[in-house]
Structures are given as structure tokens and as C-alpha cells.
């Protein structure tokens, strides 16, 4: 009974705290199109993940399951829609409503908003509304977006966990190229603005790879676009399998660089206890994002590219790495209802609730697609 009180009941309360808002928001989102039960099933799944991670303390393991399932659901639903009328080439040159597109097309959004305000066209308020949603998400979970909510990240993360060992050792050049997404972001911001086109979506987005999107007059350009998209696909799917790292997120995602900058607005951090760190570098190897740097024997340094996935917590044998609020170390409560007050619990609650609510845009619908396909 005492054990149940100390472990089971707090975990059930935690699961209920995640389940309730996800069920409410998810059912609101899907109610117009599909049955309420799909939303309920999705909320039960999110609640189950919350329960398992709280009960076992294996945050990263269950996060990855949730994250990968969410990304797979996106692929299923997106591909079902892809072959229908939703995304045809005539509408593609508008910047799509996708979080990845926010960063490289931000100047375009601002300019369109400026034009809307100047013309009195208040109905064209659309572009920046997505930015407000992003700002809200950034304040709530910051960089954790990249390890709890992003559908690209889910694929990259899930695949990076499959191999037992890395076939390619990438640390040498990996850290050298780690700033490439920042360069890509600056370049895309400027070039997208100069051409008033979502250049990233047109040239690099691997999810958009179908003939109908490449509506250009020149075969050469079409071939280059295909080539770049195949490269991006390889980095997204093959890269993690070969390197055990999230290669697309680490080297090709402009939103990752954007979020690394703005993520500082959010208080959640990963902190290293200098007294416990032995400089063994297990965390450096475990980090799928090349976000931890350390010389042998010296304290590990967490960079702003850290997306709070928690892989390093699991890897640190000395228990020297923890979730914290603004880097302040707090006593870590391991049992009972007090565990609900750990920074880790706050982060998991915020990230899982927000990630699951965001995924309600496609995950329940993907279940519906699969059921329809089976029938």
C-alpha cells in the first residue's frame, strides 16, 4: 500500500494531468472531421506515456516512443493527403503553415503583414498568427519542441535509436559543421525575402518530394531540386541509421538554429553538476544532437543546441546531469507526490501536453486513415 502511494498514485495523477488537456484540445480539433473516439484514443496514448515515464523515471525512452509515433502518424496522414487535392502545385508557392517554414520565411511573413496593415486588409492577419502560436510554444517548452513535438525530429530521433552502434564516427566533422543550420537560416531568411518565395520548402523539404510540386520551366532546375531533396531525404533517413545521431536536425534544419536562439526565453535547462562530472564523455557520445562538448577529464558543456531530450541523463553513470530551471540545482525528489514538483515533471508535463495537442492536428486523423484503409 505504501509503495502504491509512493509510486503508483503520483504517476496516475501525473497521467491524468496530461490526459485531461490533451483530450479536451484534441477532441475540439478533430470534432469537425472525424469521430471523437480517435481524439480520445490519442489522449489515452499521451496519458499512458506520461504515466510510464513518471512511474519508471525513463523519460527519454518513453519520450522517444511518443515522438516517433507522432512523426509516423504525420507521415501517414500527410502522405494520404498528398495524393489528394490538398497540396497541389498552384498553392505551393505560398508559404505553408508549417513550423519549419516560420524560421526561414520570417521576413516574408513580416513583409506580408506589413502590406496587409498598410492596405487595411485585416483579414490577411493569418501569417503572423502562426508566429504567435510559435511564440507561445517557445515560452512553454523552448528548444524541447525539437525533441517532443516536431514531426521531422520524430523520424530522425526514432531512426537514430535503431542501430546498436554507430557505423560512421562523425564527431570530428560533426562539431565543425554544427553551426551550418545557423548559416542556412540566415541565407534562407535573406533569399526567401529577396525572391518572396519559401525557398526552403521549394528546394530542400524532403516531405514535399513529388513531381507535382516542382513546377519550374527548366529541366536543369528540376533536376537540381530533386537532387537536393534526395540529399535531404538521405540525411533524414539514412544519416541517423549510419551515425546514431539526428543528422537532419543537427545539420539541415533552419528551425533548429532559430529555436536554439529563441529557446533561451524558456526556463528549462539541462545542467551538469561539476562535482559529479568525471569527464568520461559518455554524455557526448549519447547526445544525438552534437550539443555537448567536453575534453577528456573536463566538465561537459551543454550548448544552446540542446533540445532537452534527456539522452544524456540516462548515459551519465554518476547521475551528474539533471533537468533544471534556469540552471539552478534543486533537491531531486524521487518518490511520492513531491516528485510532481521536480523540474523534470514540469518539463515532461509541458512538453508532452503541448506536443500531443499539436499532434492532434494529424495523429487522430492518421488513426482514422489506417482504419479506413483496413476496412
Amino acid at each position, binding site marked *: 500500500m505504501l509503495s502504491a502511494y509512493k509510486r503508483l498514485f503520483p504517476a496516475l495523477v501525473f497521467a491524468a494531468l496530461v490526459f485531461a488537456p490533451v483530450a479536451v484540445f484534441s477532441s475540439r480539433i478533430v470534432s469537425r472531421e472525424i469521430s471523437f473516439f480517435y481524439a480520445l484514443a490519442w489522449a489515452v496514448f499521451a496519458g499512458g506515456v506520461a504515466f510510464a515515464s513518471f512511474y519508471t523515471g525513463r523519460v527519454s525512452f518513453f519520450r522517444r516512443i511518443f515522438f516517433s509515433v507522432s512523426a509516423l502518424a504525420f507521415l501517414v496522414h500527410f502522405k494520404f493527403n498528398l495524393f489528394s487535392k490538398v497540396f497541389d502545385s498552384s498553392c505551393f508557392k505560398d508559404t505553408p503553415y508549417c513550423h519549419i517554414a516560420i524560421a526561414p520565411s520570417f521576413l516574408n511573413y513580416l513583409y506580408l503583414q506589413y502590406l496587409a496593415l498598410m492596405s487595411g486588409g485585416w483579414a490577411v492577419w493569418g501569417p503572423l498568427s502562426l508566429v504567435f502560436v510559435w511564440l507561445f510554444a517557445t515560452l512553454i517548452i523552448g528548444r524541447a519542441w525539437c525533441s517532443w513535438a516536431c514531426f521531422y525530429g520524430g523520424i530522425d530521433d526514432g531512426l537514430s535509436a535503431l542501430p546498436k552502434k554507430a557505423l560512421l564516427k562523425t564527431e570530428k566533422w560533426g562539431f565543425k559543421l554544427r*553551426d*551550418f543550420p*545557423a*548559416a*542556412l537560416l540566415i*541565407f534562407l531568411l535573406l*533569399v526567401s525575402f529577396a525572391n518572396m518565395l519559401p525557398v526552403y520548402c521549394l528546394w530542400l523539404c524532403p516531405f514535399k518530394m513529388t513531381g507535382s510540386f516542382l513546377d519550374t520551366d527548366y529541366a536543369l532546375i528540376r533536376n537540381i531540386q530533386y537532387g537536393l531533396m534526395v540529399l535531404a531525404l538521405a540525411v533524414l533517413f539514412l544519416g541517423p541509421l549510419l551515425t546514431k545521431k539526428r543528422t537532419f536536425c543537427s545539420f539541415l534544419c533552419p528551425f533548429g538554429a532559430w529555436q536554439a536562439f529563441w529557446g533561451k526565453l524558456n526556463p528549462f535547462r539541462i545542467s551538469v553538476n561539476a562535482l559529479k562530472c568525471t569527464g568520461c564523455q559518455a554524455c557526448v557520445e549519447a547526445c544525438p544532437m552534437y550539443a555537448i562538448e567536453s575534453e577528456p577529464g573536463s566538465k561537459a558543456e551543454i550548448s544552446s543546441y540542446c533540445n532537452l531530450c534527456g539522452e544524456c541523463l540516462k548515459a551519465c553513470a554518476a547521475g551528474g546531469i539533471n533537468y533544471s530551471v534556469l540552471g539552478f540545482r534543486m533537491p531531486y525528489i524521487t518518490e511520492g507526490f513531491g516528485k510532481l514538483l521536480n523540474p523534470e515533471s514540469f518539463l515532461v508535463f509541458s512538453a508532452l501536453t503541448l506536443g500531443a495537442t499539436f499532434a492532434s492536428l494529424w495523429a487522430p486523423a492518421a488513426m482514422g486513415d489506417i482504419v479506413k484503409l483496413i476496412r
Partner: protein
Amino acid sequence: MAALFSEGFLLGLSTGAYCLASCLPVLAPYLLAGGGLSWKINFLIFIEFLAGRFIAYTLFALVAVSLGKASGPYLPQRALAAGMVVTALFMFYFLFSGRLKKHAPCLASLPAAWAEKRIPFLLGFLTGINICPPFAAGLLRLMGLADALKGLAYFGGFFTSTSLFLLPALTPTPFLGSRLKRIGRMTLFLAALWYLFLGLKGLISLP
């Protein structure tokens, strides 16, 4: 004269976003990669870039006034595409000149060594010859005036206000560290590839 200056200034203010869009992809990465730690150094680079742009615009304006017709001053499409290729080559040269000199010291005595010092000016000039829509509009008014001094006042106002739009490019430069410079070099490399692609595409696709 003051009225003409204001008119040009207002035209520039209302259309400056276009100038920003056409010049920033070249200027911003260069400032990140080649800028210094003080405002003074970066401001000099900025001024040099503007001077290049100013010279290019003035040359066009002079040709426009002397020809007295709207279609005269435009460069052939092929020359514009070639200009983009040359812009890209200067960017590459800036990025790799250090390594080039290390492996081939004789290159230091070539005219390219002078070009390396004047890269902001050359980049400004090369972006200037790719006429943007607001400048084309200003040019028409300039030819209507048919007076060199009046044209200078009008054009001075236009150039001043459009240059204001480029000032935000200076904002991050005092915070340049080795890391931001590295990011700047990578950005410049991507921008150079982009300009090379656009230039080659123009050269290949034109009849």
C-alpha cells in the same frame, strides 16, 4: 532642389524594402564574415559597399540622361547574368583567398589581390548594376527632369533613403566572435552558390 531631394527621399522610403531584398543577401553575409569587432570598421565596409552601389547607379543615371530614353540604360540580360556570376566569384575569392595564397603565393601579386581589398566596393557595384524596380522608377523621373543638377538632388534623396534600409545589416556586427564569423563564412558560401546558380541559369536559358 530641396523639393526634388524630398521627392526622391520619399520614393526611396516607400520602396526601400525592395532594395533591402536585393542587396541584403550579399551585404549581410559579407559583414558577418569579413566585418570587425568595432562599429567603425564595419561602418567603413558599409560605406564602401554603398559607394560601389552609388557609382553603379550614377553610371546608369548618366547614361540614361545622355540617351534620354527609358529603355537605354538597361544592361542586356546576358550581362546581368554574367554580373551575378562575377559577384559569386568575388565571394568565393574572398572565402578562399587565404588558402589560395598559401598554396600559390604568386597569386598575391595578381590584380585579384587589389580586388580582395576592395571587395565591399565591388560587391556594391555588382549589386548596383542589377537594377531593382524602385530604381527603375526613379530613373524614369530622372530622365523626365532632363537636368543634371536637378537629377542629382532627386537621385541623392532616393539613394539616401534606400541606404537607410540597409543599416540594420550593421546591427549584429559588434557582437562578432569567431563563431559568428564562421557562421558568416558559411552563409557567404551559400550565397555565392546561389548567385552562381542564378547567373549560370541566366546565361544558359537566354537565347
